[in-house]
């Protein structure tokens, strides 16, 4: 325990004390000054500053998360439950049907699982790969518990499940522990009898949900930018007292739970809610709008929650842009829009990037608000991941979906970084 705690405590004082110590014995000596300017030294110092956070992240977040995500590709539940069967299958090529030796191994394995009480775990994990397998496995185990020995043909006659090609290709797929099943499922794909195929239309969900999640995130990001950028600009140009007052309003939502804000939006958006009342009273709408349980309602509520996350980074960068620059551009003959575009915007862009990045990524993780405000077709990928973790207890599938989400997001991030040259803004 103490080994874990040590770096965290020593991390804090590192800033001034540590850098001072690193910078040299005597701060005023010329050599120290020179060394401070030396490239290699700067490299070391830069790294040292990031070490405390990096260490905390790697130890307490990186390692456990990688261990969890690795479940997406490594699931030993089948080989653990059927060690003899897996062994017997090793000697067969994929095309051969399992023979008597494999069935004998299967019976021995199932009997042992039944005796150990682990048969349910096996039935559940096979079921998550092959629909309907659970009841077949349990039925077989009950049959075998009677004590009688079955030959291959007898078992197939009693439980036709064991004669099916798909059963054995599924078991073979899990016989090594390493599997591509979950990652493929996260992309609505599976290995069929004739190679890689899409899952049937009725079961295909995830690609659509991924697309929807990124779509909603993009919409909300754009909306927060359209609302937040002008307000940030205004605040950064107001006198301090007034600016602080407006900032208080922007920060106010942070003190109320997301649950309260979601409930408030319910009160506003519902059919007989305040917004519809206002629209009718003002004569803008003649009929009550269905805003709750719709994509529009979801985007309105999410934009509200995310607005400060886009606005504040923009504002904090705008604060450091001297207003005199715009005036100078103007007096040098630039038209206002040109001056804004050529002088102001490039300097504000790092803030815009940072704010949009935060909002976009945060949107990918929403699941409470979609569950309470969105309609049935507005559930985002995190709803599914939460369901796999908490309800189905299928952590392999949750890991696969998380891995895909992480991959898609990082790819998108890399593409944007390249396309927009985020590098120049020192964001990457």
């Amino acid at each position: 325990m103490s080994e874990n705690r040590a770096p965290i405590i020593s991390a804090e004082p590192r800033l001034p004390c540590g850098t001072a110590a690193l910078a040299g014995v005597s701060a005023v000596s010329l050599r120290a000054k020179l060394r401070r300017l030396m490239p290699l030294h700067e490299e070391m110092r830069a790294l040292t500053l990031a070490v405390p956070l990096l260490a905390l992240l790697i130890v307490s977040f990186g390692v456990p998360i990688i261990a969890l995500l690795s479940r997406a590709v490594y699931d030993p539940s089948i080989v653990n439950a059927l060690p003899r069967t897996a062994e017997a299958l090793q000697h067969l090529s994929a095309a051969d049907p399992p023979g008597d030796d494999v069935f004998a191994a299967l019976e021995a394995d199932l009997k042992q699982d039944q005796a150990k009480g682990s048969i349910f775990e096996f039935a559940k994990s096979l079921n998550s790969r092959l629909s309907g397998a659970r009841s077949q496995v349990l039925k077989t185990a009950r049959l075998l518990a009677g004590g009688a020995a079955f030959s291959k043909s007898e078992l197939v006659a009693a439980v036709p499940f064991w004669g099916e090609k798909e059963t054995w290709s599924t078991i073979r797929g899990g016989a090594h522990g390493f599997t591509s099943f979950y990652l493929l499922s996260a992309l609505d794909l599976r290995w069929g009898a004739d190679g890689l195929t899409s899952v049937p239309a009725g079961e295909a969900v995830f690609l659509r949900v991924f697309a929807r999640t990124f779509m909603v995130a993009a919409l909300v990001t754009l909306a927060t930018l359209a609302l937040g950028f002008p307000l940030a600009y205004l605040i950064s140009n107001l006198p301090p007292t007034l600016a602080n007052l407006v900032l208080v309003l922007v920060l106010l939502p942070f003190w109320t739970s997301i649950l309260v804000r979601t409930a408030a939006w319910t009160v506003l958006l519902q059919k007989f809610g305040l917004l519809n009342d206002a629209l009718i009273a003002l004569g803008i709408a003649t009929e009550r709008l269905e805003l709750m349980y719709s994509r529009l309602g979801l985007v309105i509520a999410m934009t509200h929650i995310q607005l400060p996350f886009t606005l504040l980074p923009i504002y904090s960068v705008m604060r450091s842009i001297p207003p005199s620059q715009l005036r100078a551009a103007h007096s040098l003959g630039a038209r206002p829009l040109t001056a804004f575009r050529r002088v102001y915007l490039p300097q504000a862009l790092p803030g815009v990037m940072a704010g949009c990045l935060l909002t976009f990524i945060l949107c990918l993780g929403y699941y409470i608000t979609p569950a309470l405000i969105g309609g049935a077709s507005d559930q985002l990928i995190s709803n599914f991941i939460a369901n796999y973790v908490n309800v189905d207890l299928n952590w392999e599938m949750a890991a696969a979906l998380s891995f895909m989400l992480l991959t898609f997001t990082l790819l998108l991030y890399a593409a944007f970084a390249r396309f927009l040259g985020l590098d120049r803004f020192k964001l990457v």
Partner: protein
Amino acid sequence: MLLSPFPTLGERIRIGVLWAWCALVLIYLVTPLLVPIPLSFNSGSFFTFPLAGLSTRWYEVVLGTERWRAAIGNSLIIAFGTTALATALGTLAAIGLSSPRFPGRRIVMPLLISPLVVPIVVTAVGAYRFYAPIGLASTYGGIILAHTVLASPFVVVTVGASLSGFDRNLMRAAAVLGARPALAFFRVMLPLILPGVLSGAAFAFVTSFDEVVVVQFLASADQRTLPLEMFTGLREQLSPAITAAATLMMTLSIVLLVVANLLAGRSRRRMRVAPA
């Protein structure tokens, strides 16, 4: 905001439109926060207007019961602990990363923001598997550390954005003039990047203050927080007590911020009278 002391008609219009747009945005931002206030005085227990009647029963629940008081206290302890730790560590890391010579920035940066991308339930399971064996589950420290991991990317990103406009030559100048790095940081760099640091701190605060999933995994009854208290009742009833709690928190924050603002204004005025 004006480009010249004698604005043209076009400029006046542009500024008028900006003000009008911003007013609408502020209305959008604040209206949903006003909704819970009247509801918190509702004598009924439903989230509907018109109110069933006026009463302070939900304030009595929040202020009068040990559970709610403890939950508010726990939330504040954990949120402020997280804010302090995440802001310190995140600012340091962002300064390090902003150096053009930082080795392997392309690998480190995605790693630093990955806590934002990994779904929170997965993070929570991971956190439990890390903290429980070393005895930090069911402790304030464990929850603060777990929240710091979630909150630090905000600080890294916002401070990083602020640093993009920071001229590193200022630090070299300070060094050449004999300032030790700590002094140069506090007197030269920090004042310039302060808006970014404070934004990051605000994000860190709300990340922790509003977080329920990790808390659900790591907290025992002694660390029950406000969001956990709100969410666990959801199976039967969304208690209006949460609107009372929200109203109290907002009032408290306004009072705190106004006081801070007044103090800051006074010190600004004093600075003007007696320049250092």
